[in-house]
């Protein structure tokens, strides 16, 4: 059950679920224009905590590239890729070094915060507009709130389906 092929297939299934979540999210009503929940990151968190190290970063990269193939590569796609990869890397690092001392919700909050911070940094570097610092506090706050939601949902899903997703239920 621990073969590389097995893990690859499970990562691919979570990636496809993330792509579907990413594509059905925009029609849903958003509380504030320009701010969205980022439901697809749920799959990265679930993958990280059920399949282990290196799965979140793979799920994020593959999902972002696939969604960009659907929607067309543009500035938004690169912002999404950069933010997603950095937040996944940080979540991976925290999971790798402090697995026993951290919970799903806190790691997900950290990921949401770093996701929005990276995107803001990329926009500032691209547009060279220091006035954009006005948006920073609200972006960070929305990232943390989205992280709370994603982390709570992910923790519930992992409690019910974690063994099913990782394949550990079938081993016994």
């Amino acid at each position, binding site marked *: 059950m621990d073969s590389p092929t097995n893990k690859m297939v499970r990562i691919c299934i979570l990636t496809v679920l993330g792509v579907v979540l990413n594509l059905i999210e925009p029609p849903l009503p958003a509380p504030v*224009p*320009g701010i969205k929940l980022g439901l697809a990151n749920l799959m990265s968190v679930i993958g990280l905590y059920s399949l282990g190290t290196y799965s979140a970063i793979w799920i994020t990269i593959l999902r972002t590239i696939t969604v960009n193939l659907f929607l067309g590569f543009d*500035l*938004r796609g690169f912002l999404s890729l950069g933010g997603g990869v950095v937040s996944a890397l940080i979540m991976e690092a*925290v999971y790798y070094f*402090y697995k*026993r*001392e*951290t*919970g799903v*919700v*806190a*790691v997900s*909050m*950290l990921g949401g*915060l770093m996701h929005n*911070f990276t995107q803001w940094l990329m*926009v500032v570097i691209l*547009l*060279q*507009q*220091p*006035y*954009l*610092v*006005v948006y*920073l*506090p609200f972006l*960070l*706050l929305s990232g*943390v709130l989205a992280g709370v939601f994603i982390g709570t949902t992910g923790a519930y899903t992992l409690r019910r389906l974690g063994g099913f997703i990782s394949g550990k239920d079938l081993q016994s």
Partner: protein
Amino acid sequence: MKRGDLLIYLFIIFMLLSSFLIYFFLNRIGGANQRIKSVVVEYKRQVFTEIPLPSEKRTVELKGSWGVLILNLDGYKIRVNPASPHYCPDKICMNQGWISEPPQTIVCLPNRIIIYYRGGAQIDGLTH
């Protein structure tokens, strides 16, 4: 809650507090000297047009690769007209409504347009 969560929460609170402090600090400076000279419309990091303020109540039409963008001016207040017919998939620039003082900006990422005030707060020198 586990032990390491506390450190993560502390880091998140630190980031949020520092960003809000920067925000309020810049706002306070912006409120101190109200000497706005003009409003600048930037396209691809180059000044597209510059309109002196204050202006009487009027509309300005900007033609470019995005189509026609209609700006409403009223004193120091500016907005992108909600009925503006330019290429706009997100409608964030229109939904923002009126802006009235620096460092407020209207940003249109799809068209790479930034509308901001010149004069007033000296945020440029501070952040550089």
